Every structure is written in structure tokens, then in C-alpha cells.
């Protein structure tokens, strides 16, 4: 059962990501990404990590994608990149793709060489909370500060100059 589910979820997520890359309309791409995130959530669920699975679905497939779609649909994104910028975009995309490939290769090599560490049966939500508030308290709080700065920045950017 778990094996069948694993293959279903992985095929759906790979297919959805491919469809996301290949679809021309940005809103369709965003919807495919929602599907990819949802099936990734399913994979996390199969790995006995319910907290990560739920967070993946609610925060990524839920909240962030709603905001993303909202932005995509209020601006007219159909036009795409203008012609004179296309060579630069292509070059940047190739460089980024190579970097990403190298990183995936490194990660895969270390994973294949070192035997997988035994994952505990179920990563309890309480244990994650304890880790966040004890061991990783400073990074956690610094992240919240960063998000706060981003929020204030966004408000400052959209605020009209005349104070209205």
C-alpha cells in the first residue's frame, strides 16, 4: 500500500512540476505547482512526518499559493519577457540550472555514499516545537525578525507618497 502510494505521489509530483515548467500561462503554472506541493505533502506523510506534511500543504499549497495567484491575476503577466532581455534571461537560466544540477549531484553523492541514518518512526510535533524553542531558538527568532522586516518593507513600498 505504502509503495503504491509512494509511486502515485512521486509520479504526480514529477508530472505536475513538468506541467508547471511547460505551461505558458503563469496562472496555470501556479496551479500545477499547488498539485506538486500537495503530492510532496503526501510523500512527507508517507515518511511518518505528519507535521511537515501538514505544513507543506497548508502553508505552501494553501496560503502562499493563494497570495501568488492573487498577484498573478491582478497583474497582466501574459506578455512575458520582452525580446531584448531574452538572451540575458536565457544565459542566467542556464547558469542557474547548472548550479542547481551540481548541488543535486553533490547531495545525491553524499546520500548514496553514506548509509541513511535511521529515521525515528514518527517525528512528533511536540519534539519539533521543543527543537524550535530550545536548540534553534536564535535562528527561529531571527527568521521571525526577517519576516517582520519584509512585512514592513512591503507596506512601505505600496504606501502612497502623499500619505493617503
Amino acid at each position, binding site marked *: 500500500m505504502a509503495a503504491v502510494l509512494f509511486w502515485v505521489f512521486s509520479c504526480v509530483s514529477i508530472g505536475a512540476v513538468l506541467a508547471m515548467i511547460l505551461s505558458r*500561462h503563469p*496562472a496555470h503554472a501556479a*496551479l500545477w505547482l499547488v498539485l506538486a506541493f500537495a503530492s510532496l505533502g503526501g510523500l512527507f506523510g508517507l515518511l511518518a512526518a*505528519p507535521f511537515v506534511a*501538514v505544513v507543506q*500543504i*497548508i502553508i505552501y499549497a*494553501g496560503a502562499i499559493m*493563494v497570495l501568488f495567484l492573487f498577484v498573478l491575476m491582478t497583474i497582466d503577466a501574459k506578455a512575458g519577457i520582452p525580446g531584448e532581455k531574452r538572451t540575458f534571461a536565457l544565459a542566467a537560466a542556464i547558469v542557474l540550472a547548472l548550479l542547481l544540477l551540481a548541488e543535486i549531484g553533490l547531495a545525491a553523492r553524499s546520500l548514496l555514499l553514506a548509509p541513511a541514518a535511521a529515521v525515528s518512526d514518527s517525528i512528533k510535533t511536540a519534539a519539533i516545537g521543543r527543537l524550535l524553542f530550545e536548540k534553534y531558538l536564535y535562528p527561529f527568532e531571527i527568521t521571525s525578525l526577517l519576516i517582520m522586516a519584509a512585512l514592513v518593507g512591503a507596506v512601505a513600498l505600496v504606501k502612497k507618497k502623499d500619505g493617503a
Partner: protein
Amino acid sequence: MAAVKTLLYLVVYPGLLFLFVYSTFCEWFDRKVYARLQNRMGPTHTGRGGILQPIADFFKLMAKEDIVPDRADKKLFKALPVVGLAVVLTAALLLPLWHYQPGASTFNSFQGDLIILLYLLSLPTLILFLAGWASTNAFSIIGGTRVLTMLFGYEVPLFLAVLSPAMLAGSWRLVEIAAFYQHRPYLLLVNLLGFAVALVCVQAKLERTPFDIPHAETEIVGGTFTEYSGKKLALFRLMTDVEMVVSAGLLSAVFLGGFGGGLILGFIQFVLKTLFVIFLLSLMRALTSRLRVDQVVAMAWKYLAPLAVLQLLIVILVKGLVL
């Protein structure tokens, strides 16, 4: 035997068949209560007391001409009603009616199903927004943006309000929350404030008066549904009905002690409690008139969210002092 049970669960009760019949019954109940409160008769024609009217409406719409606008995003436009109905039907399967094991997790009841259910109930809102956007009609798009604007208002207080009884019960699983309150019914009184907040939020989620802003027919024709007709509109209306039943079921599972006592007793409790919640929602619909969208968001953040936080504080206090 287990496979037969699962199949029965998926198709008959509380799956497809039961949900179709019961959600149309709930629509009739809602319309009848609403009409009586306004000194009208409501549906009278089809069946005894008009009880079959929603089903008649459904089949009438199914037989009507189905038009897809030329400039619409056709694939999305056609897929959305089906996906929306599938989502709410899936959400209904998570209501703890029967076929669950208290100790172990099954496909319909597991640790965290409360959160999954809340998420599945917020998906129809996104689908309505996409429906408005895919129609490429000015009225639909305005309706769609209003759907999302409202979502940003009521979603946070709803989640906070529904999660506070779960915190008191110390579980994210609907069956365990319900069992906790069945053992200590007096603790349900602690959550009254949260229940009120959640009721208002569910009313907003279902886009009923005073929150019927996304399809305010005096301003923006049919809102999100302007371009929808025939089968697709019928499916959307069924989706809204099932969503009402599932939301009422969620509120009764979390705030009213759930549906314990096996198949028959659980069924009776389910019907009584969901009808009670739907009666309250109809009452709210009859008592109020439409707000503006900015008033909804302001109300949600100024009153509903702080009240939900207050409920959370009360719960933490009670948990520390009593339990």
C-alpha cells in the same frame, strides 16, 4: 468485510449518496426556516412541504443548456465545478461518524485530520475565486477578488476559534476531541465564545447574508457564477450545500460534543446537531443585511480575531487551572 465497510463508507454513508440527499434536505430546511422568519411560505410545490424542491432544482439545472464563454479559460472553467465538488465530498469523509478505530489511525480519522478538514474547507473559496477569474467577465472577476478579500478576513479567526477546543482536548484528531467533551460535557461551556466566532466565520465562508458580497446580485449580477449555467452551476450549488453540511458537521464535532454512540445514535446526533447549527446560520441570514467588503475585513480583524485570541487565552487558563 473491512473492504465492504470502506466501500459503504465512501459511497453510501456518509459518502456520496447520503451527502447528496442530506445536503439537499439541509438546503430545504435552510430555505424553509429563512422563509418562515420572513413570514413567507418558502418552497411548497414539490413533495410534502416542498421538501423535494432542491432536488428538483438540481435536476432542472442539469438539463439546461450549458454555455462556456468564448473568451473563458475553457479547461479551468470546465474542471472547477467537478474539482470543487470532489474537494467538499472528500472533506465530508473526515467527519467522525463511524468506521474509525479510537486507538489506530485509518484513512478517515488520524492525528491532524482537524487541520486537513479545515484546509479542505478553505479550498472551495480558492476554487470560487478561480471560477470568477476563468470566466473573464468583469462581474465574475470582481466577485472573485471579493471572495479572496473576504478569505483574508475570516480565515484566521475561524482557524483560531476551531483550534482552541482542540487545544483544551489536547488532540488534533476529531474523534479524540469529541470523546474528550463527551466525558466532560461541562467543558463545552468554556468554548461558547469560540463557537460564536466560528459560526460567524462559517457564515462568511459560505457567502451567505450578511457576507454575500461576492455574489451581491444588486451590484455585480451573479458575481463569480455570472457565466456559469446548466450542469456546472448545478454542481457548484451542490458544492455549496455539501460545504454547508460539512462546516456544520465540523462545528458540531468540535463545539457540540461530536457524534458518539455507534452508527445509529451517531447518525441521530449528527442530524440533530448539524440542523441546530444550520438553524443558527439561517437565523443569522434572516436577521442581517449585507455588509461592504471592507466592513467585513475590518470586523474580522478588529472583533473576530481578538475574540478568538481571547478564547484561546481562556482555554489556556482553564487547561492550567482545572485539568
